[in-house]
């Protein structure tokens, strides 16, 4: 009896020891990849720390790369069974990632489509395929009008709320030297920056048009509204009463930072670098409305997704991590650290955030924002740049230049969607 007892005890000790070792061996490590941007890395470090505190059996290893190498590395690593379990990608890359079998849909039981439709801002629905979401953002971005408080005050004007007020304010802040050269612009302009988004999703819609049809597969801006939008935009930098010039001080944001531009349209991601600019007193307001009060904005976002590499317990850990990075808490941290806007109205539209002097205009802009589905963002942007250059450098009429741009953009879209359907 005593012998048996001893044996039972020994067995019990052995099993509990095994259980002890076993549980430490169960600690799962998953890998997270994103591109390198100081504030984003910092925010993600905080999120990972919080997540690991709540889930002591999971560790998350973050790797980041320069933006230029990002896509190549992801493409090479995942098919080889290396690389991330959870990966960050630009919303516009989703189709490519899905087609290349790099990511898998989020589990419908944890991320039910109906609930996400309800919880997130509507533009996130671009990530949905049938009943499943492929990926979800922590944060989104939109555009707003930055203004230089000192210049506004000096000219005796108020932050504009309509196009008319904007032009008037810009005229009041524009300065020229004796020879008529611009030395200070009322507002910045340049399709190379964010203006192509403002023109596509902002101005065209405000002038009553619809820039694209068929889920962004058909260009539709070669229209009355498109022409009006282009003429309005071109009026900023053409003619004797131009309030700006393209390429003034090299780059729009440089001119604004240097205090030589009264107003500047840019994304919420610019907040951080403006805060670090010494001597610049700036404010921000919603993109100006038309005289009838019509507003429209552009929004874009980066999403996180689970890769096809994640299996078994790593998959489960990855799902938990995805749950955390799309939680309200994570969104608030992202807003505070990076300055990017929460992807859910429940976080974004809180009294405090929506009325925030800095974030408020961007967050309110999300409610009327559209997200362009790009086939090749830089290629499509280049067409807008050239559309304006044909007018300014070659004296082409707006009608003709607009038609050329529309045709060229349709060619890019056709090529992309035809290749995808093959």
């Amino acid at each position: 009896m005593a012998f048996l007892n001893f044996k039972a005890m020994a067995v019990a000790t052995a099993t509990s020891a095994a259980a002890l070792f076993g549980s430490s061996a169960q600690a799962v490590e998953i890998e997270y990849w994103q591109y390198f941007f100081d504030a984003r890395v910092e925010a993600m470090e905080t999120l990972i720390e919080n997540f690991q505190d709540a889930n002591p059996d999971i560790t998350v290893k973050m790797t980041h790369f320069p933006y230029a190498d990002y896509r190549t590395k992801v493409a090479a690593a995942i098919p080889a069974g290396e690389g991330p379990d959870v990966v960050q990608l630009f919303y516009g890359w989703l189709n490519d990632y899905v087609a290349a079998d790099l990511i898998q849909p989020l589990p419908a039981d944890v991320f039910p489509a109906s609930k996400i439709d309800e919880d997130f801002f509507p533009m996130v629905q671009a990530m949905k395929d049938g009943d499943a979401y492929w990926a979800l953002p922590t944060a989104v971005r939109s555009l707003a009008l930055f203004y230089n408080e000192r210049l506004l005050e000096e000219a005796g004007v108020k932050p504009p709320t309509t196009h008319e007020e904007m032009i008037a304010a810009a005229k009041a802040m524009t300065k020229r030297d004796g020879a008529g050269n611009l030395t200070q612009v009322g507002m910045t302009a340049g399709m190379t920056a964010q203006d192509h988004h403002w023109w596509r999703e902002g101005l065209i819609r405000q002038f009553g048009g619809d820039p694209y049809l068929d889920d962004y597969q058909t260009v539709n801006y070669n229209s009355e509204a498109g022409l009006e939008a282009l003429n309005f935009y071109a009026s900023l930098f053409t003619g004797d009463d131009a309030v700006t010039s393209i390429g003034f001080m090299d780059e729009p944001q440089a001119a604004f930072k240097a205090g030589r531009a009264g107003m500047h349209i840019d994304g919420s991601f610019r907040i951080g670098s403006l805060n670090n600019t010494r001597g610049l007193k700036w404010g921000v307001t919603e993109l100006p409305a038309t005289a009838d009060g019509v507003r429209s904005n552009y929004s874009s976002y980066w999403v996180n997704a689970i890769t096809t590499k994640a299996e078994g317990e790593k998959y489960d850990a990855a799902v938990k991590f995805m749950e955390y990075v799309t939680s309200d808490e994570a969104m608030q941290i992202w807003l505070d650290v990076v300055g990017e806007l929460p992807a859910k109205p429940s976080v974004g539209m809180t009294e405090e955030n929506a009325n925030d002097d800095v974030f408020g205009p961007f967050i309110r802009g999300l409610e009327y924002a559209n997200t362009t589905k790009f086939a090749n963002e830089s290629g499509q942007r280049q067409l807008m740049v050239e559309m304006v250059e044909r007018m300014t450098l070659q004296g082409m009429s707006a009608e003709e230049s607009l038609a050329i741009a529309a045709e060229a953009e349709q060619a890019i879209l056709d090529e992309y969607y035809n290749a995808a359907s093959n």
Partner: protein
Amino acid sequence: MYRNLTIRQKQIVWAWAFLALPVLFYSVIRFYPTGNAFFISFQDWNLLGDRTWTGFDNYQKLFADPVFWKVFKNTFVYLLLGTPISLVISFVIAYHLDKTRFMHGFLRMLYFLPFMTSAVAMAWVWRWFYQPVPVGLFNNALAGMGIPQFPFLQSTKWALPSVLAPAVWAGLGFQVIIFMAGLRAIPRSYYEAARIDGVSSWTVLWEITLPLLKPTIVFIVVFSSIGFLRIFDHVFNMTTNNPGGPLNSTKPLVLMIYETAFSSFDMGYAAAQTVVLFLVLLVVSLIQLRILRDT
């Protein structure tokens, strides 16, 4: 077994033993990717998905693309302006520097300095020089004298020469050094004989210096031609917001390849452009070697 080889065979074995590493290096690092590029040029590949064979589609698209022809022309404008201009300037500098004793080393260093400077840093500094008022150095000077601004980088006509100028300037140092080495290698006795015969200095230059510099000139022409045909960093950095702009007026072939590959992710099309660039480089180099070598 090694012992039974003849001396000649042993030499061959040793030669290959030493060559093995560079041969391996070149096959893996150079020839394999080059061969791969030829393959990809017949495929459709976005870097993420599968590669699919498309035959000559990429080449057909290329030859039907007006941007390609514009870029092709630009590439040759860089070559045809850049090579002779830099050749003449660097020869004139080297010819006179060779005769200068006063602060010779210091002057030589001044010419060589730009060659050692990072092309990126240099391109950005020149880019700011070229800006309109109120930042641009040149335009501020013009405006200060009451002269209208000059649209250096903002005109389809002047942007290319504006980009080319710093590229020529940056390459001068190297060419000056090579020319000076070539000049030093010409035996003094020819010049002494010429002086005894009382020949004009123009004839000395034309009949002695230039013919004897031929190998140097061949080297510099081939070398700088390849450089101008592959121009990229100056253009890219001086026009980053609108690469190769305005309206593709400064875009060289290499920049088009870069954009097609790494912003449009159309690897097959980019590879086809690379093959064309390779052929252009090959043909231009062969023609130059043939023309300049035989007389």
